């Protein structure tokens, strides 16, 4: 069996790590970089580009260069998050046959799992070139607050990349693992992860060889991208005021603005003022127009203040769920490129009353933790045991459209929970079990993972039959649900692993296509 790898599939950047000489290391790509942009594009000559090459053509070929699709994966086309992405997107996002958002480049509409699969395949390749042997198995990380559907789509992406996905683990948990390997003794750890697209906060406890996730919270649609967007809006408004030209409809201009906005944002992490200089941004009446302005750190901080505060709200929720106060946390680990922003670091420091830990590389630590977990699974030595939780409550829809939680969020997995339900009408012979995930008390506001019907209930007055509904999450995070009529013993169940936005036929086809397109590395 080949080597296992760990992949941090980020919104903005991806990173791959392998285990070598008794420790995890990050593998640089052929350009020498330890992270690879999570970008995919099709060049004018039809060539497919991934990573830095795709990023290089982003401005000149904005409509055919795709980025940040992690913000779309596992969502429905009509979700507000998808709609918000659509609004600003220089590339075309269309409604797929399963109501999923797809990216159209020329003739072809790419599904989000496929794009993620292309990026994963690249990361797999980076590892293979380094190791000089084929790689088949991986642990892939996702934001802790990802729903089951989003996780399932990521699993599919792994398959499309030709990988067997050993486990999908949470990004902050992976970071904590990598951090925890270097520590001894008991600690309560907070991991604050603000990346390009998502924000996660997890509180963990480490003691005698066990790393237990106490609670996790976050927002899968809050990250550096949103800061960039605020800057772009600011620039567009400024330009409209001075030049009286609206740039919103211009894909290339938008892409240049986004690029410049991100650069300015990063500059402002070390400087007080950043210059934004975009010559020939557009033309008006045959006259070329230039955008030339400055942004101060103070302006930036005003623009994004509420985003940073939003993250602190999640931190408080998470602390409450963990039953801890901020001062009881012994160590704060910050992860994700966006935590380089001084304002973020200050906010975290203020909130926890301590400076964050500086010993880990915020870009690499997640991939390192992923390969550590892979290694701990397949190898005999088990130094650290991970007790992870399910981030969102699971339950079913009950009479009146209510959501009955069977497994509460932050429950350690694996777990089985059962509860007895009954009929609501006389002589009702069937019940519909709608499996949901989320935190709303209203069933319809939660994510539908699947549904099935238990029929053949003997006729009885309402409230008489006893129907036991049982939820199970196994150690790999797979959810299965069964319903049993206690009187007759008849039972129906589903494994909730078909919640991807891809149908199984589509998935098979994609796996085959990408397998065929692969130039195999001889091992």
């Amino acid at each position: 069996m080949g080597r296992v790898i760990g992949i941090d599939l980020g919104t903005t950047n991806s990173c791959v790590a392998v285990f070598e000489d008794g420790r995890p290391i990050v593998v640089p790509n052929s350009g020498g970089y330890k992270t690879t942009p999570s970008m995919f594009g099709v060049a004018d000559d039809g060539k497919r580009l991934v990573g830095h090459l795709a990023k290089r053509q982003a401005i000149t070929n904005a409509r055919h260069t795709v980025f940040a699709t992690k913000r779309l994966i596992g969502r429905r086309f009509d979700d507000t998050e998808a709609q918000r992405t659509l609004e600003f997107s220089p590339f075309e996002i269309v409604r797929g046959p399963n109501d999923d958002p797809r990216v159209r480049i020329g003739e072809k509409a790419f599904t989000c799992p496929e794009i993620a699969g292309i990026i994963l395949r690249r990361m797999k390749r980076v590892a293979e070139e380094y190791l000089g042997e084929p790689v088949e198995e991986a642990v892939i990380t996702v934001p802790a607050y990802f729903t089951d559907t989003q996780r399932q789509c990521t699993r599919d992406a792994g398959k499309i990349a030709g990988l067997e996905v050993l486990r999908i683990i949470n990004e902050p948990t992976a970071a904590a693992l990598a951090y925890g390997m270097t520590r001894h003794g008991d600690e309560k750890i907070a991991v604050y992860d603000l990346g390009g697209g998502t924000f996660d906060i997890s509180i963990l406890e480490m003691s005698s060889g066990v790393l237990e996730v106490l609670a996790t919270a976050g927002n899968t649609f809050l990250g550096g991208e949103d800061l960039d967007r605020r800057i772009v809006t600011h620039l567009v408004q400024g330009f409209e005021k001075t030049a009286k030209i609206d740039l919103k409809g211009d894909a290339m201009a938008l892409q240049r603005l986004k690029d410049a906005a991100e650069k300015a944002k990063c500059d402002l992490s070390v400087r007080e003022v950043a210059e934004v200089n975009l010559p020939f941004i557009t033309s008006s009446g045959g006259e070329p127009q230039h955008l030339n302005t400055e942004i101060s750190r103070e302006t930036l901080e005003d623009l994004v203040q509420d985003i940073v505060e939003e993250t602190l709200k999640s931190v408080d929720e998470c602390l409450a769920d963990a039953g801890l106060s901020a001062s009881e946390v012994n160590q704060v680990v910050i992860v994700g490129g966006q935590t380089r922003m001084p304002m973020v670091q200050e906010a975290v420091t203020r909130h926890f009353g301590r400076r964050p830990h500086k010993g880990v590389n915020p870009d690499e630590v997640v991939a390192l933790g992923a390969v550590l977990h892979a290694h701990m699974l397949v190898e005999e030595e088990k130094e650290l045991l991970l007790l992870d939780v399910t981030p969102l409550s699971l339950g079913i829809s009950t009479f009146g459209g209510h959501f009955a939680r069977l497994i509460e969020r932050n429950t350690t997995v694996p777990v089985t929970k059962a509860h007895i339900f009954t009929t609501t009408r006389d002589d009702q012979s069937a019940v519909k079990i709608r499996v949901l995930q989320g935190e709303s008390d209203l069933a319809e506001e939660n994510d539908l993972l699947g549904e099935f019907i238990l029929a053949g209930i003997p006729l009885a007055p309402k409230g008489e039959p006893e129907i036991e509904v049982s939820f199970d999450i196994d150690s790999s995070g797979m959810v299965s649900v069964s319903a049993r009529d206690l009187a007759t013993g008849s039972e129906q169940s589903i494994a909730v692993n078909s919640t991807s936005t891809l149908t199984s036929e589509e998935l098979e086809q994609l796996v085959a296509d990408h397998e065929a397109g692969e130039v195999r590395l001889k091992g």
Partner: protein
Amino acid sequence: MQEQESGTAVGRRVLRLAPGFDPGGIKPSSVEFFLLSRIDGRTPWRVLREMGGMSVEESDLCLESWLAAGFVEVCHSDCGDQGLRRSLSCEGSTKVSDSLRVDPSLDLDLQTQRRVTELLGLLEGPDALLLGVSDEANEKDLKRAYFKLSREFHPDRYFRRNLGPYRNQIEIIFKGIQKAYENLSRPPLASSVVRDAVLRKKENGILSSDSGHSQDESTPGDFQGLRSEREQRARELMRAAAQAISQNHFSEARRCLEIVADFEPETPFLRQTLAHVRSRSVDPVEAVVKEEVGQSLFSSPSRKSETRHRYVRTG
């Protein structure tokens, strides 16, 4: 003392009323009456003793005394296994003990195989015993024990190993450990589902509405929520009946019991008691419970409340 060992084997015993037992023959307090009413040939001792109304020790004592007096008897159904099987029902595994033979061909050393069998045996017992902590263990001790057992039994420890039937059992043990830890480390809350149901009922009258949205029609209602309310109601009525019997108000007792019989599953006790009060209420002259000294069944360890007084056997 008996309560010391009531953890596993004793706790698994299932009691039923002795054939020909006449509930009119004893004069229980209302809490004792309630306990008696719950003896149905299905509920194991360890559940009965936690039924509430009196302390666990008092319940034990009470049950022991009834057993000694021949009011109740142990039915020898294979109840331990049944209880276990119920808790495993979602795994779909039926006979745990059969499939779990020590098997040297598995990728699991024999010592661990024996540990699995040992822990499976503790699953139905008290949580503290499963975790191997004393009843007074503090949060720290609990966590230490929980982590230690997790390191031993978390399924990730055995990733991809050939464990045969042990794979399922190890997962079941881990879930059991986790549940025990949860139970002990937090004050027991009413399950949120039940909590929700109660709230919801207040808002929407979920029970009474015959037809809701057509879309909702087939979604289930909360049974445990309803059942706990029903049980609460039954308990109140049974207590009222007991009160009435002790004051020789048989017609009133009869009314209470008839209501209970209307919506509770009929237990032998309920049937017999109802028969008893019916016979008494039609013939009030006979309706005298003798208070003369009879055989003393147990002596009270405390004089705390009305739960403590002597039983007499008439005739």
